[in-house]
């Protein structure tokens, strides 16, 4: 059939409309799925942002889907991702310990030990960098490291992908990847994306403190006094302007967005020399970053002993005593540790109250949630 001029114009307008939508308009873009790894047929995961929490920025090329989160959980607990198939991510990030390791240093498949305490995996979707020294800027980037690290799971990604691709178990990983990403061809990129999706669902927001913030329960007098202590400036107001005889915890463990971390890096006065572990300086190369480590969240802190980047403190009492002492002066000690010559001078009663508050951050429902446990 010959085209009439009118038909030609109609076609032109149709093409122009499509072109305009594709190039010029925000509204015509698919907001939930970008990039070649997105599977438009996957079911969007109904992520619920808890009250008082900020929005979670999820990478446009890795939106949460039911299938992706399920696959991520399978992979998080998958022991075949380690050299001798004896360890999974969950081996060092134990749910009942706030997804951290009760040992100061985790032991890898070869028997080698790490050099830092395994961080608690809580509310990672709001973090702005990963690892104690912040060397990974995204969750996906962070997940790449432990599998291949010789002191951890010690498996090359080539081999890891090969094992998953050849999986003949009931899980059937190629099938799981097909559901999640629309392809049964497994890659390291897709594997970390799935694990990242799962980790973003590890949201702790139902501690006693959260329930109190929502008006569902009351804090005891000691817990509330500890909370006030947490929020008060340290120091004697007679000698320190603004001193409030407080615990001075809130600067780094800010309660903004109920994250209890500022996501920044601080030298909290543990050492005066940083030869053994330079912290952030090892990444930035800046001498003034020596001894700085990322502020961990205090959520589930009562479950996630030992404490500090090297797990040197076994109990929260030791941690409080450290801050109460003022810590060790050094060239890079954080200005927040401004009482290095005298300490906070908290009384035993005040320390007990602070401890009581820290225990209100324990979220038992989170650590025992069935959807986070080993599915294998």
């Amino acid at each position, binding site marked *: 059939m010959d085209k*009439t*001029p*009118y*038909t*030609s*114009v109609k076609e*032109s*307008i149709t093409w*122009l*409309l499509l072109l*305009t*939508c594709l190039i*010029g*308009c*925000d*509204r*015509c873009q698919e907001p939930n799925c970008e990039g070649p790894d997105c599977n438009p047929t996957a079911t969007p995961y109904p992520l619920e942002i808890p009250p*008082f*929490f*900020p*929005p979670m*920025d999820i990478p446009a090329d890795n939106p949460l889907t039911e299938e992706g989160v399920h696959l991520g959980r399978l992979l998080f607990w998958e022991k075949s991702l380690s050299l001798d198939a004896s360890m999974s991510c969950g081996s060092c990030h134990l749910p009942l310990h706030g997804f951290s390791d009760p040992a100061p240093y985790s032991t890898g498949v070869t028997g080698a030990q790490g050099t830092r305490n395994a961080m608690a995996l809580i509310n990672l979707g*709001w973090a*702005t960098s990963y690892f104690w020294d912040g060397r990974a800027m995204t969750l996906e980037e962070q997940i790449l490291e432990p599998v291949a690290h010789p002191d951890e799971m010690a498996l090359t990604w080539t081999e890891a992908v090969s094992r998953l691709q050849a999986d003949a178990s009931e899980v059937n990983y190629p099938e799981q990847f097909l559901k999640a990403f629309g392809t049964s061809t497994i890659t390291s990129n897709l594997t970390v994306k799935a694990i990242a999706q799962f980790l973003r669902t590890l949201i702790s927001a139902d501690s006693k403190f959260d329930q109190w913030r929502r008006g569902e329960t009351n804090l005891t007098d000691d817990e509330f006094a500890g909370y006030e202590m947490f*929020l008060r*400036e340290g*120091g004697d107001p007679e000698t*320190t*302007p*603004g*001193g*409030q005889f407080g615990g*001075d915890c*809130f*600067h*780094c463990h*800010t*309660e*903004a*967005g*109920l*994250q209890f971390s*500022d*996501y*920044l890096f601080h030298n909290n006065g543990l050492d005066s020399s940083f030869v053994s572990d330079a912290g952030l300086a090892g990444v930035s190369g*800046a001498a*003034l970053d020596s001894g700085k480590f990322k502020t961990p969240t205090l959520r589930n802190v009562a479950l996630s002993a030992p404490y500090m980047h090297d797990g040197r403190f076994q109990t929260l009492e030791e941690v409080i005593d450290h801050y109460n002492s003022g810590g060790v*002066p*050094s*060239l890079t*000690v*954080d*200005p*927040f*540790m*401004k009482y*290095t010559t005298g300490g906070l001078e908290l009384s035993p009663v005040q320390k007990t109250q602070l401890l009581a508050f820290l225990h209100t951050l324990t979220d038992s429902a989170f650590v025992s949630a069935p959807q986070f446990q080993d599915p294998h």
Partner: protein
Amino acid sequence: MMKYLSSHIEKRNLVPFVWIGLLMLILVGCTRPFFWMDDDVPGTFRMDAILEWEGQPYSLGMETEDHMNHPLRLDNLQMYISEVALRNEQGEWEKGDKVHLLDFNVQNQRILDAFPPGMYDAIRFGMGLPSEINADIDPASYPNDHPLSVVGSAGMFWTWASGYVFVKYEGKYALQAGEQLIEPLSYHCGTDDSFRTVTWELEQSIQIRRQNLTTTELVFDASKVLLGEADSIDIVMDPVTHNSEGTILGGRLMDLMVDAWTIR
């Protein structure tokens, strides 16, 4: 109708219609306003923030001396700037609507705001945050890229009741030359009472042109926070003020900071 069009309109005559159609599609279909449609954002005024110490270029981490010859090093300098305004020829203040968090740890700190075209003979801005966006605000209510959000305000938020830290001025000092700089210096100023306004009468008016960028340099001399014309701070006697409820020292520091700014 279609037959009529087909038989009476020649193909080449339709070209203008196609272009008109394209233009209409763009105008109607896009969510982003076009510059000629956007009367509210006619010109951009940018102030490039520059850090100095006693009139010389300064970077955080550099060792220097205060007015009492104490070796000193600033490690952190952050501050909220809000309510940037320009005074027009009618003597009225045109106000920008943005909040800025200057962080001198990061290169190329800038304050950008939009103003109507015209001539302006004075500049004004607030150090800190006006009360309506300070206390009783939940940072979680802002998108994460906003300077007042949980992420954007990292370390610059006290509590819901007391709001944001307006200025952080932190570093280390030594009691005398030759000693290691390990004494902490830590000034955190905030609270509604600490809000200060900085104003300059300009010797030469600046012109904001529609859709054009007008720039100037905004210099902060950090040494003047410790030594001003009417006041001075002894960092050994007063190395710390941290108080969400405001302190006399915090107020003095904010007053000194007002005079630490110059426009270049």
